[in-house]
């Protein structure tokens, strides 16, 4: 009886341990081993030393994919925060139909990225897309939303904002509700206007939520895949190649397992570094 009682907890957690060893621990170790090899799965593995790393730093597409992710984040993060905060502020007033509006903003969050991408591909279409029809309707010229290399990544960032912002509205709403009402009452007594209250009380109080949005968006930026895969295939001129799309191409199109693993390791390290730096900022702030 006593031994049974001792073994039981381990029996209960054993599925986790098996899963962890097989799908997390082994892959991490094997991925590091792979970075020193050349392998197409079929032929035997070939040791190539630091070749993959040398190649990485000379790979124009890899550097391009980093730049693309940076462009994405530079547009996506501020846009996301401004729109989410603006709508959360309005929704935080005691309004009728609040739930209906909240439900509408949340709709793109629950729908598959595949659906959103196919849909926006049509909206961004050059000849008959809705955006260009609106532009020509008011007498402006058409924009190559997905065909102009300097705009395509920004177009994807705008679409991603539209898709995710509903979630961040909810997170900001939760954050806004933690701000004590007395603060605003005190500010009212001192005659503060709406903007002063926003910048002096609301913004500092919801700082943790803002950082969380920054971290989640950063992870999202490095995980971008299906959007460029469907919309542009990474083009034009590699201007929308994302981190995961490039790993996918190297791994499952060219079967360069060693090099794809090197890319994966590198992107993972960059994500972890960015998140750690951002976390440091939060701790400094409090």
């Amino acid at each position, binding site marked *: 009886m006593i031994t049974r009682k001792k073994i039981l907890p381990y029996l209960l957690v054993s599925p986790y341990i098996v899963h962890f060893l097989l799908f997390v621990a082994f892959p991490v170790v094997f991925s590091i081993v*792979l970075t020193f090899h050349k392998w197409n799965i079929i032929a035997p593995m070939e040791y190539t030393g630091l070749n993959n790393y040398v190649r990485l730093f000379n790979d124009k597409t890899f550097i391009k994919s980093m730049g693309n992710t940076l462009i994405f984040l530079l547009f996506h993060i501020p846009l996301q925060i401004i729109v989410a905060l603006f709508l959360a502020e309005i929704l935080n007033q005691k309004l009728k139909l609040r739930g209906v509006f909240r439900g*509408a903003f949340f709709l793109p969050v629950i729908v598959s990225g*595949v659906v959103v991408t196919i849909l926006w591909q049509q909206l961004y279409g050059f*000849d008959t897309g809705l955006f260009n029809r609106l532009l020509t309707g008011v007498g402006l010229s058409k924009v190559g939303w997905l065909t102009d290399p300097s705009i395509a990544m920004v177009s994807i960032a705008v679409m991603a904002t539209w898709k995710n912002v509903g979630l961040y509205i909810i997170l900001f709403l939760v954050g806004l509700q933690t701000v004590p009402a007395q603060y605003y009452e005190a500010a009212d007594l001192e005659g503060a206007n709406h903007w002063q209250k926003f910048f002096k009380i609301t913004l500092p109080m919801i700082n943790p939520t803002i950082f969380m949005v920054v971290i989640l968006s950063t992870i999202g930026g490095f995980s971008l895949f299906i959007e460029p895969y469907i919309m542009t295939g990474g083009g034009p001129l590699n201007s929308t190649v994302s981190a995961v799309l490039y790993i996918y191409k190297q791994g499952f199109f060219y079967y360069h397992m060693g090099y794809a693993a090197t890319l*994966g390791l590198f992107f*993972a390290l960059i994500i972890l570094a960015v998140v750690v730096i951002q976390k440091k900022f939060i701790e400094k702030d409090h």
Partner: protein
Amino acid sequence: MFYIALTICAVIFVYPFYWMVIASIAPENEIGSLTIMPTSLTLSSYAQMVDKIPIGGAFINSLIVASSITIGVLIFGSMIGYALSKLVFKGRDLIFYIIIFTMTLPFQITLIPQYIIMVKFGWIDTYYALIVPYLINALSIIMFRQYFKSIPDSLIDAARLDGCNELQIIFRILWPNSMPAIITIGIITFMASWNEVLWPLIVIRDESLMTMPQLVTLFAVGGRAESQLGVKLASAVMLALPIVLAYLFFQKYFIQSMASTGIKE
């Protein structure tokens, strides 16, 4: 004032979906100029889609995969969450920290080796590849652990005195008292599996085993839609429909569930 701003924004978020639906039932030659309503309605895009791709089979595949994963995540998650919250044993904290660590590990690092494991297991083009790696989910374990902690030990002790074994305690005593956690984890898991597309693209090549997002994606990027917008959009509508219907009925749960995962991360 507020209402005007909100209404404009709501239109921006909902109108594209409306446009997608009416474009999928409009005659092909009208889609290019469509804004509010086509002159006539037709189901020809849907008929062509059914002709070209095995959408019914993909729907059933998606249903099997997402349901199996959800059931697995709930069963394993509650077992492990129970052990971590209510039982005392050596190594418990270590396992807890490992789980937290795996949650912060970016998937980019494990993607390639996980594919190689599937190849070595002979699981490429099987349901196993789609289901087994997802049966255990770190976030769900943490959420169950958190929730079970709020359930008093006296309830468990009483059940033990009545002769319940540990599995009975989990599924007969804890489950009925943990409905909010089960609904939350169930919704997030089902939705994430239903919408997952990268992993199926990697491990499934056989069209008869493809899930909805994969089939719709390959249909949209491949040549088979033959640049017919209506057919592409019809397949997108089919992919969105089940989750949107579920959302209309359980909106409150969806929003709470998604918000709680965001906060935990």
